[in-house]
């Protein structure tokens, strides 16, 4: 038999391959754009979730501090009103670093040595752990373990043999729950409970005495009004009573916040007056009886309205000293900011856990959106390849190598993935940004993690391109391996 001299087919240059591919895409622009649209939607969905998650995470970090600052006045007015509970002292001890003001303050009230303090904090941390364990249980499990005991009552119940036995039986029975504190530590803790309770009560008593002393000093004047002068004499009174109160940093902030709170309450009280209600009713075109405080704040926030409102307040016989139009608007703005802050705190409540600290819910959403993205792109690419079997067969008849056909389709997918991914990532990021802005307000603009989002976009584009390429490999490999006529028959 004669040997035919069959040279190996040369590879088509990449330049020409790309040209053929691009021509193909351009010709089927509509079909290609549908495929690209699928990729856009999939990547946009992924990117949307990702950007929202990233922004929320960053907002959460940003918010915690701001909320603490914004609520200083509440924290201090609560502190100066009531000595608190055993549990609140435990939480204070467990959650604050040793050099913090609150720990020093407790040490002062309890008159503890450094060693005693360290020991107490250690015990408080363990108690806090026990509390959080039981608080995390659902009602049935909790009841079967410790009946209806709460707070320090839990420890006292566990100290009784019957209570302990009930707890351990239930713990052994309920397999899904794990109590991570070692038994000997629990024993030691329960052993120390009476002593710890005594120490905690000592703190509470001292606090109570300090509060009484302050009350005597200011002659039962309204606490908020006193706090508005926290940067003057009242600050000294607090310090003398034994509280750690930073006159440099803390006092001015507290004073401003107290004044703001007083004015806010005063304004909300003004809503009880008929002339004020009437003004809002006129604006909103409703009955004066239907007017509420939120409407007043909205109208004040719009800014055109404060002058007339002040007039009404005067005519109603209310005290308007220290108030002017500017102040009213600023109060309204402050209230709005505070609302946004509270909202942010609620929305980001589970941030910090899960993948990349995105929170469990968002991690799950991200995972699902990746799945949707992958399946969508795979399906689109498979359709795109399958409907072109005829063309593949023709190209094979003309002498195309299997590798060329695969390269052509993988290149096409890459192009589509790149274009779709880029558009999708941009779209997703913008939508995500818009949604988060709508939820938290523009005040959080500085909290946007630009670097993280850009990185997320790059990752999304790469993921989209990669998925598209991988999705095209399998069907195009199948198509390329078929004899031309078999491929033509597939349709």
């Amino acid at each position, binding site marked *: *038999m*004669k*040997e*035919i001299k*069959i*040279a*190996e*087919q*040369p590879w*088509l240059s990449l330049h*020409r391959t790309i040209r*053929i591919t691009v*021509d*193909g895409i*351009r*010709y*089927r622009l509509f079909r290609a754009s549908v495929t690209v649209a699928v990729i856009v939607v999939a990547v946009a969905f992924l990117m949307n979730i990702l950007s929202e998650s990233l922004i929320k995470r960053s907002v959460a970090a940003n918010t915690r501090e701001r909320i603490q600052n914004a609520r200083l006045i509440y924290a201090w007015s609560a502190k100066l009103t009531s000595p608190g509970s055993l549990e609140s002292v435990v939480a204070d001890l467990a959650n604050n670093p040793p050099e913090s003001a609150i720990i020093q303050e407790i040490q002062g009230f309890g008159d503890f040595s450094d060693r005693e303090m360290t020991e107490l904090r250690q015990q408080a941390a363990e108690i806090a752990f026990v509390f959080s364990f039981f608080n995390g249980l659902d009602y049935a499990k909790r009841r079967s373990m410790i009946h209806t005991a709460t707070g320090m009552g839990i420890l006292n119940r566990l100290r009784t043999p019957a209570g302990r036995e009930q707890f351990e039986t239930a713990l052994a029975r309920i397999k899904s729950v794990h109590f991570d504190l070692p038994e000997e530590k629990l024993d030691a803790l329960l052993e120390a409970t009476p002593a710890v309770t005594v120490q905690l009560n000592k703190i509470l008593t001292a606090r109570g005495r300090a509060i009484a002393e302050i009350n005597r000093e200011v002659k039962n004047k309204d606490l908020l009004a006193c706090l508005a002068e926290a940067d003057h004499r009242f600050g000294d009174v607090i310090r003398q009573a034994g509280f750690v109160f930073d006159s440099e940093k803390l006092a001015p902030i507290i004073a401003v916040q107290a004044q703001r709170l007083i004015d806010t309450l005063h304004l909300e009280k003004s809503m009880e007056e008929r002339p004020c209600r009437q003004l809002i009713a006129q604006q909103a075109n409703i009955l004066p009886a239907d007017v509420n405080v939120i409407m007043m704040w909205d109208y004040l926030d719009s800014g055109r309205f404060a002058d007339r409102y002040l007039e009404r307040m005067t005519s109603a016989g209310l005290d308007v000293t220290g108030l002017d139009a500017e102040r009213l608007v600023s109060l309204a703005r402050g209230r709005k900011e505070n609302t946004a802050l509270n909202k942010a705190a609620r929305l980001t409540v589970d941030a910090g856990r899960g993948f990349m600290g995105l929170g469990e819910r968002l991690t799950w959403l991200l995972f699902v959106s990746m799945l949707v993205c992958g399946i969508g792109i795979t399906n689109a690419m498979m359709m795109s390849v399958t409907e072109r079997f*005829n*063309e593949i*067969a*023709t*190209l*094979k*008849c*003309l*002498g*195309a*190598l*299997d590798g*060329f056909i695969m390269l052509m389709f993988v290149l096409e997918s890459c192009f589509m993935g790149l274009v779709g991914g880029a558009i999708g990532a941009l779209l997703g990021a913008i939508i995500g940004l818009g949604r988060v802005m709508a939820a938290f307000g523009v005040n959080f603009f500085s909290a946007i993690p630009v670097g993280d989002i850009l990185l997320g976009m790059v990752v999304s584009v790469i993921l989209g391109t990669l998925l598209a390429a991988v999705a095209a490999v399998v069907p195009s490999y199948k198509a390329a391996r078929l*004899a*031309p*006529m*078999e491929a033509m028959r597939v349709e």
Partner: protein
Amino acid sequence: MAAVTAEQTNGQNSAVANGNGDRRVIIRTVGLKKTYMMKGVLTEALRGVDIEIFQGEFIAVMGPSGSGKSTFFNMIGALDSPSVGRVFIDEVDVAQLTAEELAYLRCHKIGYIFQSYNLIKYMTALENVTTPMAFGGVMPDQARERGMGILEIVGLKERWHHRPIEMSGGQQQRVAIARSLANNPSVLLCDEPTANLDLNTGQEILELLQRLNKEKGVTVICATHDHRMMNICDRLMWIRDGRIDRMADRSEVHIEVGTIE
């Protein structure tokens, strides 16, 4: 080998084979069978075809639809693999070739013309013609020059930049013919090239094929229902039920047609 083949055939074409004794065999099939699984039923498309086709011949293959014509074409064009039997193209067993060698064979040795043209829709006429050249490693400038030359042969030089969708059926078929000629193939396989065309255009295509056969010495194998093909072919071959029904020279057929009519 030729003698063995002659014995294996059913005798009907042996006289013809003897008459062309010293000419070079370009395509030879031995006991060609093909079975398909169609909805779970085994269908025999070809039930043993043995044939020798000589270089420079113009063969018309006739037969009712479903007779296995297209299957036969795909086998001898190395587009599909036989279930049983062998196909030799230029004395090379197609089944022994690697994927790369098959691609080379399809690119350089055989030109295909399909009933439905199968042009690449997004390429211009010229690009359609030059694509096989590109696969064959011809430089772009040279390919362009040669492509224009071939388009001139089929009379479409002025329309080189048109896409298939902008051309009539006859023009598309001519582009398909031009494409099949891109790498100077030894064999042209035409599957009903005139089936979708009107009489005049069909006539033009037939004349074109005849010219290629006479002037360039290309072996043309043509599946057809078109009786005009009988006037230009050298040999006729009838396929029925997956077997060669009969083979005849053109001169004999003319007489028969005359007697029938």
